[in-house]
């Protein structure tokens, strides 16, 4: 729709340009963040950096990379089925009873709880009560993954519910008219249509888990480690923790290493988000 031409004064033009600046300024900050960090760490970005241990020369991030990889795989295994389950329950089974409304309101609240509090919850439940910690050094891979799972589950539930809601109700009614049970409808009609959206949401949530440092540090993750984790109860490091450790040391060489590790972290997250977009695209064209 073409709107009628309006009386335009300098105030209008100034206001419009001011608003445009408000869009461009954050984008400028984003670009300068990436570029300046890249310049800071560029001399270290070689294969040695991802293949070496932090105590070697040149220093590397191998244990942190392996730790992050383990964490994200374990977190995915734990959080995605539970998140999908809760979302399917809320969208397909829950009636408008107080019980389902309580669960829905509760999940909305949990999504806003600060990540340090999840760290404390993990410390009290997984390490102090269930004893999932490492004998000598507080945190273990499994305790970290359990805590991150609790942290991102609400995000997975919220995005999965949105994906489930896009499936038209008529399709469900058609399935039920053909005599399918509730689960058969979900399994054969609803899920194939909603799955691309659900997976994309989960992958975005997992990429948030990769960048989280605070809950892992609250759990007592070790900041300096020179070996690879060898089991679920092993101590570990992760990329954000390694970056944090280097940032705390007052020496320019460590700052450079932190910058290079940040570039690796951002690159990893970018790849993961790219995969999410690709999955959505592929699955959508398969359904059609």
């Amino acid at each position, binding site marked *: 729709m073409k709107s009628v031409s309006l009386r335009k004064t300098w105030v209008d033009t100034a206001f419009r340009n001011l608003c445009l600046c408000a869009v461009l300024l954050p984008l400028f900050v*984003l670009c300068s963040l990436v570029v300046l960090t890249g310049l800071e760490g560029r001399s270290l970005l070689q294969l040695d950096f991802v293949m070496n241990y932090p105590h070697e020369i040149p220093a590397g991030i191998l244990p942190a990379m392996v730790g992050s990889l383990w964490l994200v795989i374990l977190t995915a295994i734990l959080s995605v089925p539970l998140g999908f389950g809760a979302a399917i329950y809320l969208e397909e*089974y829950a009636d408008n009873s107080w019980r389902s409304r309580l669960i829905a309101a509760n999940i909305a609240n*949990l999504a806003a709880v600060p990540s*340090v509090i999840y760290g404390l919850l993990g410390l009290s439940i997984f390490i102090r009560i269930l004893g999932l910690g490492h004998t000598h050094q507080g945190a273990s891979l499994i305790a970290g993954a359990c805590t991150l799972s609790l942290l991102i*589950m609400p995000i997975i539930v919220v995005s999965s519910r949105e994906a489930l809601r896009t499936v038209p109700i008529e399709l469900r009614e058609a399935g039920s008219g053909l005599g399918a049970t509730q*689960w058969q409808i979900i399994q054969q009609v609803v899920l194939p249509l909603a799955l691309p959206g659900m997976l994309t949401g989960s992958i975005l949530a997992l990429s948030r888990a990769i*960048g989280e440092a*605070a809950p892992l540090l609250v759990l007592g993750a070790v900041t300096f480690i020179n070996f690879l984790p060898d089991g679920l109860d092993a101590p570990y490091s992760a990329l954000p923790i390694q970056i*944090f450790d280097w940032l705390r040391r007052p020496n320019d060489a460590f700052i450079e290493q932190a910058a290079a590790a940040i570039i690796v972290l951002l690159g990893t997250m970018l790849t993961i988000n790219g995969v999410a977009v690709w999955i959505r695209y592929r699955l959508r064209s398969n359904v059609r």
Partner: protein
Amino acid sequence: MQITGKARSASETFIEGFLTCCGALSIFVTLGILWTLGSETISFFETVSPTAFFFDATWSPFVGEFLNAPDPQYGIRPLILGTFLISGIALLVAVPIGLGAAIYLSEYAQPKTRHVLKPALEILAGIPTIVFGFFALIILTPLIQTILPNLANYNALSAGIVMGFMIVPMVCSLSEDALFSVPQTLREAGYGLGASKVSTICRVVIPTASSGIAVSILLAFGRAIGETMIVWIAAAPFAPERVTVSWNPLDSMESMTAFIARTSSGDISPERYTTLCVVAATLFFLTFMINWLSQRLIVRIGRTR
């Protein structure tokens, strides 16, 4: 595939039961948080009086661990003030920029530009907070120091500014939804009365969308007070022995989150654990109130539509 009616209903019941458990797990997470923080808070107030906790102006919980040290003081006020001051700086950055960006995207941008710019802004929200901390400490602080030479190396100002850019997408995205859903007929009524575009936006569109904008600011504020790594790295890297009420953003500043994370990542004695759980309970209560308030606003917006 032949499924007898009975077997089918048994598996259906099983699946429904499993899915219900997944939903119920979230209740147990909340109960777990309440139990963890609540039980420690009760034992904390057995030794510390609530008046001292709420009204003392000094936070020095661990000085008593050394010999010949003065008594520890447990006034939470400096921590709350530090948290709110940094979040306040963040809002001073995020609200004008986020709202301006939302107005541009909703009122001026072509649909095509909008579809490019909106996801581009969202990228900022996905950057790990440790990266923002690095940016505040290594890049922004030296930059501001060239203008303000008495800015400390670790300070609340750059932490707050960078945190502001972190929450811009939150303010922008939700405000833009609110502005965009203002009916076109209202805008045209404004133009029909001879108002210019800018006065229509300021006097018609923004007031109509005000509840939605308020929700976006509240949620962004909630996110800001729960933010840990930016504050820890750029504003308060070392444990101060005592924290007093301070309004100076040019100096280092302790927040509740930084206190919790730093204390917990060191060696924690039972006393330290109790103290940090009490701070966490305060933080949880504040974020819960903010969230509850915004939920109420959302319900009200839904009713008026």
